[in-house]
């Protein structure tokens, strides 16, 4: 799968602009502030119906305008698909596939998959579990529709359950029949999601290891552990039911897959605590490329890969190793870099399409 053409109207710093891309490596170069990251963010938006960076849609609209639109022509299994994402102030966002608006925008997820690697990715190691859950959820959801649906439903049940628990704190009254229904739904979805998360981590383990070894040429062994409270209990059913008293006291759901985490190790030591900055960077790249490798092996649609501004963070040997690894995957890549000459030099051995902004 690749993106052939892109047209931006009032998206971030762009007024109106069209691009054509190669189905291999596209290098977007230009000084800082010309809109390299905004361009790859537009591609992220087309694939995942939201910006990688902004929290609100308003931030995506060009200053002084009232709407933006992103139009992309994808080629997938030799067929061309047009995707349009548009948003107008105080209206609902619209996503269309071949001129037909989606009833549920979430149905778009997974159709045109994408993996984004950015310089802030080591946050994934250093920050809290929310980021790690979001990363794995995003990757699994794009490949596994039932997982994505279960996740959406889990969030809904969780919110409803928390609402009645919170009300209980205030009015000292709760409908136990309703609580039981939400608890059972929570258990059912948690079992499903947890099983998929566990299975997924097991499946990518080897790819991450191989990529790490290739990338760093060290003997260090990376490892990912899926951490879930379920471990000490037999099942989510026991764990969630056992938590009910506490939930009633605290006014929220204290256990569930919304508390899961993923821990990253290098030689059995937690990278968050013991890894150097270099090791953290290498691990993240190995993780994401490992994910990509597994993806390509197990799906017919190859995702688009975005490497935003990461050359700055890597030394020359790592950069060339990264390029070799990427070339092997033979998918469509967008990379951004501010140092025009360096990029041209690095990419010399590769037949890249240069887009100078």
């Amino acid at each position, binding site marked *: 799968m690749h993106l052939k053409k892109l047209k931006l109207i009032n998206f971030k710093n762009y007024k109106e602009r069209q691009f054509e891309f190669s189905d291999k490596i596209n290098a977007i170069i230009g000084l800082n502030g010309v809109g390299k990251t905004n361009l790859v963010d537009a591609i992220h938006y087309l694939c995942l119906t939201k910006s990688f960076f902004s929290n609100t849609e308003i931030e995506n609209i060009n200053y002084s305008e009232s709407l933006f639109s992103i139009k992309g022509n994808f080629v997938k299994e030799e067929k061309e698909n047009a995707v349009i994402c548009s948003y*107008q102030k*105080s*209206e*609902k966002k619209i996503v269309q596939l071949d001129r037909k608006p989606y009833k549920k925008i979430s*149905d778009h997820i997974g159709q045109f998959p994408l993996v984004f690697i950015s310089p802030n990715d080591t946050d994934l190691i250093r920050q809290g579990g929310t980021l790690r859950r979001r990363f794995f959820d995003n990757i699994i959801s794009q490949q596994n*529709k*039932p997982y994505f*649906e279960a996740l959406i*439903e889990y969030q*809904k*049940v969780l*919110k*409803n359950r928390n*609402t*009645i628990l919170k*009300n209980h704190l205030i009015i000292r009254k709760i*409908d136990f*029949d*309703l609580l*039981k*229904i*939400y608890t059972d*739904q929570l258990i059912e979805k948690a079992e499903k999601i947890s099983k998929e998360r566990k299975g997924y981590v097991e499946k990518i383990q080897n790819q991450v290891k191989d990529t790490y070894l290739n990338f760093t040429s060290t003997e260090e062994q990376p490892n990912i552990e899926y951490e879930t409270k379920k471990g000490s209990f037999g099942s989510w059913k026991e764990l969630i039911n056992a938590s009910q008293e506490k939930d009633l006291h605290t006014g929220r759901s204290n256990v569930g897959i919304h508390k899961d985490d993923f821990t990253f190790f290098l030689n059995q030591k937690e990278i968050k605590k013991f890894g150097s900055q270099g090791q953290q960077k290498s691990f993240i790249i190995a993780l994401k490329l490992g994910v990509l490798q597994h993806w390509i092996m197990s799906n017919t649609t190859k995702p688009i890969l975005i490497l935003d501004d990461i050359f700055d963070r890597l030394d020359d040997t790592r950069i060339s190793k990264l390029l070799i690894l990427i070339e092997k995957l033979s998918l469509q890549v967008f990379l951004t870099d501010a140092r025009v000459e360096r990029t041209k030099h690095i990419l010399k051995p590769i037949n890249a399409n240069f887009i100078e902004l």
Partner: protein
Amino acid sequence: MEFDSKLINDAVASFSKLPSIGKKTALRLVLHILKQENSLAEDLASSLVKLKEGVKYCTTCHMAGDSEDCFCKSSYLDPSIICVVEDIQDVIAIKNTGHYSGFFHVLGGIISPINGIGPDDLKISSLLRRVKESGSEIKEVIMALPATMEGDTTTFYIAKKLQGVDVKVSSIARGVPVGSELEYTDEITLGRSIMNRVNYSVQ
């Protein structure tokens, strides 16, 4: 999109309070009304006021009508079945199928605590009373609620509350739409259709 006219702005604000009407649509409606004969605006205003003042809700089935004399009092309905729906328009939709001749019960919504709707905000207790007080004349309660999580939760909740009452609780089937191809049916619907498949008999 602010106008100098406060009158136009106010009207746009009012219209955009309606469901699925954005500011743009509201403005189009307001400007349309402005361009038409006076009678359109007058008729619209008076019918809205009359509507709100005049429409009565049946105290038994909670259907809306012009008088308290609801169609649920008529003797040609099958008194052994009652169909539970979310809202008034669902009554009309089910009636129009021509395949149902029993009672209705309008809940006035579905359970959704995040939207501030709990069981007590709906006509659930009146449904339970209606079934229990029928003295087992009502043999079946058909749940015809939306095929969403909230719909399922509500169905489940009512079924739970009817446990121990001598009545059959059923739910309308969900599956592949008539006249559509399997390959275009979403996985969840298709999955459900397979799980809740029906026996095929050749007579």
